[in-house]
């Protein structure tokens, strides 16, 4: 006789819940993903590869990777700062700061893009000054990077805050009482304790940075071969009825996301037991 835990549901209920879950996943996740790859390869591998090697596509891929390369380190540093401030210190306005960190999750990305257009656009607050000094932000890389940073800001901070709160300040206090400087305490004690959470947050941030559409769409200007990121390029190709091209670039984007998720899963497996010791 198999051991049956006290909280186990009857087998029928279990099977039912699992079936519903599986059907749901198949319908909303697996089917669309499969469609992307199916449509991309509909006319064979050749046209798909061709579409990805098109100069405009290559430029979009480059721009996406550059944007992620700017956004992720920026948000990693600021995410650690914000989480450190929130989790390890008491100060007035703390709950306000937490709300502020969550703002990008609750604001529509289109609005985020519009904010930057209003500030830096030709008719915006700094528009004239920027034109006078020949600095391009909107319809250029800085605008795209800013909008992406805004949208992906919470990922690292949100990942780290609960982790750092749970770890408390005891180890930091111990390090200080043993004579360590503030910087030494951070590098020797705080950083090693949050490295897995940080990597996790960075990967999520990266996935979102590469896939961001709404905010980037507003600030990019859709200049082919210049300010088009991969998601924007997919849309353009699709609107031009170039389905193989659209789905090929989309498949590449999916591939990047899958690699990111695979890395994340690998991290979870590799993560040593030392992260959460029993008491």
């Amino acid at each position, binding site marked *: 006789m198999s051991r049956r835990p006290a909280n186990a549901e009857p087998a029928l209920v279990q099977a039912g819940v699992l079936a519903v879950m599986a059907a749901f996943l198949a319908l909303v996740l697996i089917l669309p993903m499969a469609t992307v790859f199916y449509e991309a390869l509909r006319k064979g591998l050749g046209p798909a590869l061709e579409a990805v090697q098109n100069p405009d596509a290559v430029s979009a891929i480059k721009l996406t990777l550059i944007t992620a390369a700017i956004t992720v380190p920026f948000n990693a540093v600021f995410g650690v700062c914000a989480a450190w401030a929130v989790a390890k210190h008491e100060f007035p306005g703390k709950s306000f700061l937490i709300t502020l960190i969550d703002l990008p999750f609750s604001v529509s990305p289109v609005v985020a893009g519009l904010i930057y257009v209003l500030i830096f656009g030709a008719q915006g607050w700094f528009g004239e000054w920027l034109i006078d000094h020949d600095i391009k932000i909107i319809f250029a890389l800085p605008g795209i990077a800013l909008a992406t940073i805004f949208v992906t800001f919470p990922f690292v901070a949100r990942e780290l805050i609960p982790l750092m709160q749970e770890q408390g300040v*005891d180890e930091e*206090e111990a390090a200080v009482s*043993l*004579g360590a*400087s503030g910087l030494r305490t951070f590098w020797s004690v705080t950083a090693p304790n949050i490295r897995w959470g940080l990597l996790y947050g960075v990967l999520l941030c990266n996935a979102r940075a590469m896939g961001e559409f709404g905010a980037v769409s507003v600030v990019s200007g859709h200049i082919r071969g210049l300010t088009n990121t991969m998601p924007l390029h997919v849309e353009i190709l699709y609107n031009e009825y170039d389905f193989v091209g659209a789905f090929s670039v989309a498949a590449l984007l999916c591939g990047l996301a899958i690699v990111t998720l695979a890395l994340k899963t690998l991290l979870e497996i590799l993560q040593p*037991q*030392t*992260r959460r010791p029993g008491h």
Partner: protein
Amino acid sequence: MTISIQSVAKSFGRFPALNGVSLEIADGELLALLGPSGSGKTTLLRAIAGLEFPEAGQILFDGQDMTQVSAAARRVGFVFQQYALFRHMTVARNIAFGLEVRKGAGKPSKAVIQDRVEHLLKLVELEGLGGRYPSQLSGGQRQRVALARALAVDPSVLLLDEPFGALDATVRKSLRKELRRIHDATGVTTIFVTHDQEEALELADRVAILNLGVIQQVGTPAEVHDAPANAFVCGFVGEANRIEGEVQAGRFSAGDIVVPAPGVANGAATAFIRPHELTRAKTGAGGLRLTAERITPQGPVLHVEARTADGRRLEAAFARAGGLGFGVGDQVEVAVERAHVFGA
């Protein structure tokens, strides 16, 4: 090192944690800060360590003002309640941390650090466990690592926050003896915080009792136990029967219970009678008549819960040797050898 705490005050928001605390700690002393939770004892310990900074008053180490000096510069050894071991470092690296963070000429060589770690592992009886991670140790072992880590920096004072609070009773007892042994071996001035009066009385040279952010009494274990300064100390240290009554002309009375109360002003008062200060009296000698309700053996004594003729509950402890000669429901006469009476 001597430590002098002068009128230290600290509050958290509107809640005062320390209310003008003054305390002198002698060189090489083992002092207990004893009090209920919320009494300010941990805040006082953290203020000595430099982990909290007082709003008023001064903290002197060997006559030198340390009030605003950072924890890193004070060279104290602090053992945290939950040990706060660095979870990603081995035991050896935990212990070496305080030496490795030193800069310039003060930093010992690798060989010296290794020797020191070996020596400390031996001192706390954890030889051979230097390569383990904290998560692979038992609670008692973690406690020893925390102690070794604090001692590694050759601290001028060793501070321990509820050092045995998270351990089970047997480990706690053996570690208590251990701490005494290590204190005697190193001679370092040691202050520990506890809410357990038994622990404080057994381990410390002197006990400082705190309540509501104020020191109630400082003295040897015998002094605070046998000559409590006030009703709080008397009730908190050791077991005592607490009896509310009245003092008239130097005598305290509450029903059948009448004890002398020299020097206590007339009016409402509280008497404390320790269970072992009730002794058997000859029948008919005019003693206090009690009816035994429950008898339980507690080590060398038999603990008797009893009631007076007018229904007051009293607890007494009689030597076990030779038996009691009475049982549950029997009447027994006792004399009150000593009582502590405090006016309301």
